[in-house]
């Protein structure tokens, strides 16, 4: 284990070294009250930093609280103790500087593709002229190859197309950080591969801080700079953080031919299997 789970960390020292970091998760604990009296601790003392242009994947078994962690970073849920800081400012509520890509897309079904993206742009970029907003919307629709489908309603789209709208909507408002909650989890394998490539293309052209929840080891290695592996909940902690040593832009085929890829993959799978057996026991 790389990270210790003890509460007594020399936090002032860490504070100093985190000041330069983009996103800091510090001594984060999330607990829910239960009827019995003892609160259920979901996340137990999470410490994590994300660099300004870093792609982080968070991986773990279902129920390990990885979605909760993302929700706290987004501001949709509150930490019980500890905190999250973006460029040194504590995160207290949701904000457009940390835009989410949702697993179930969360598109508004009464709006067309274009209107869905436009709604976000109108809400966040109120300093722009209508003309500039239109340009912004069109630019991001084109980025995810959705210009021909711009007038369609979400019901008329495939899962992959819906998630491309979700991604266009998230990127169009130019967030400081992108939060993705199993963005490809609901897609079939072929579409998933396509969309991973597309998102990675966009990110490689325009790197920014990304935090992605996933349960797919290959996806994590292919896309992320670092992989945060969580232990099982309740009382989930960060079990291990893996550095992914491959340079961007990445080529999936080339990756698969390297020995390092398999070592990394086996290591990650071993970690998950280990905790899976614990869970079954």
């Amino acid at each position: 284990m790389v990270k210790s789970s003890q509460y007594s960390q020399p936090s002032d020292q860490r504070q100093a070294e985190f000041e330069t970091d983009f996103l800091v998760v510090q001594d984060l604990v999330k607990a829910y009250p239960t009827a019995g009296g003892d609160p259920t601790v979901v996340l137990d003392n999470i410490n994590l930093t994300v660099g300004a242009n870093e792609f982080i994947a968070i991986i773990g078994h279902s129920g390990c609280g990885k979605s909760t962690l993302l929700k706290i970073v987004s501001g949709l849920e509150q930490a019980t103790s500890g905190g999250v800081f973006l460029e040194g400012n504590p995160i207290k509520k949701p904000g457009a500087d940390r835009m989410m890509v949702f697993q179930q897309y969360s598109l508004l079904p009464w709006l067309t593709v274009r209107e869905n993206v436009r709604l976000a742009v109108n809400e966040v970029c109120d300093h722009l002229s209508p003309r500039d907003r239109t340009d912004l919307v069109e630019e991001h629709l084109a980025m995810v190859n959705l210009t021909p489908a711009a007038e369609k309603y979400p019901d008329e789209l495939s899962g992959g197309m819906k998630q491309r709208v979700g991604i266009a909507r998230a990127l169009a408002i130019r967030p400081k950080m992108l939060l993705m909650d199993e963005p490809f989890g609901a897609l079939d394998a072929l579409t998933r591969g396509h969309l991973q490539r597309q998102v990675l293309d966009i990110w490689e052209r325009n790197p920014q801080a990304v935090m992605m929840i996933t349960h797919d080891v290959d996806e994590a290695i292919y896309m992320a700079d670092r992989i945060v592996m969580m232990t099982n909940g309740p009382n989930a902690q960060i079990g291990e953080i893996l550095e992914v040593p491959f340079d961007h832009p990445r080529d999936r085929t080339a990756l698969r031919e390297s020995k390092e890829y398999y070592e990394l993959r086996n290591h990650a799978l071993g970690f998950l299997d280990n905790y899976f057996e614990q869970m079954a026991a």
Partner: protein
Amino acid sequence: MQRKLRTRAAARLGRPESVKPPFRLPLERIVLPAIAFLVVLLVWWVIASFFTTLMPTPWEALVANLDYILNPFFRRGPGNLGIGWLLLASLRRVLLGFLLGTLVAIPVGFWIGLSPRAMMAINPLVQLFRPVSPVAWLPIALSIFNLANPSAIFVIFITSLWPTVINTALGVASVPKDYLDVAQVLEMPRWRQMIKIIWPASLPYIFTGLRLSLGIAWLVIVAVEMLTGGIGIGFFIWDEWNRLSLSSVFLAVVVIGLTGLVLDYAITLIERWVTHRPAKAM
């Protein structure tokens, strides 16, 4: 030939052949309902021929009603109007009462859907009054308005309230959390969430309420008009019964049914136009 090919292909793929929709021929969609209508006509004919002397057979009713059917908009002296005029008079009452009811029901439903305390305050009222036959409000309305027409409209108003209130509240309370999460992440102020998210997300529920309300209102107007008299399709039925002219009653039944269908269809059209989504089957 084509069918055979399909069968063979299905067999090759190892799929059972019986996977096909029950109504494949468009003809069946016409023939089967036609049989059902014929059965009803037959039952009518049997009852009219062998059990009662007051009732016309279907054919006699049609002949007796030809004048009404061919000239729906005649005016032959006071109180002697074509069935089109009677229908319009009833429709006017229903639409007025329904509109007034909707204007009250949607904001109230919206409010109690948003606020659990408002729900606690108002829900018992709704639950108490909902099972009351709207016709029971007629004497109260008459005591207030002293006039038949406003009283009828008031009863329709009361009728239209409950389904719309309940469904609007349900719709507002069950807006998917995902949509609200999106709004929150976009830092949308609460009032704009109501306009941009909660209102459009609950529109399908609101329309369900409107359809139920209008359907019941159209049921109730017949009973109300029987009691209040005046010009209208409901009083027409009672009046014709008093003259023992049963064939006109049968005409009125068919006209009321068709009008109800058209009203329901009109709301689904509006719903489709407003929400860009097909109306839910009810």
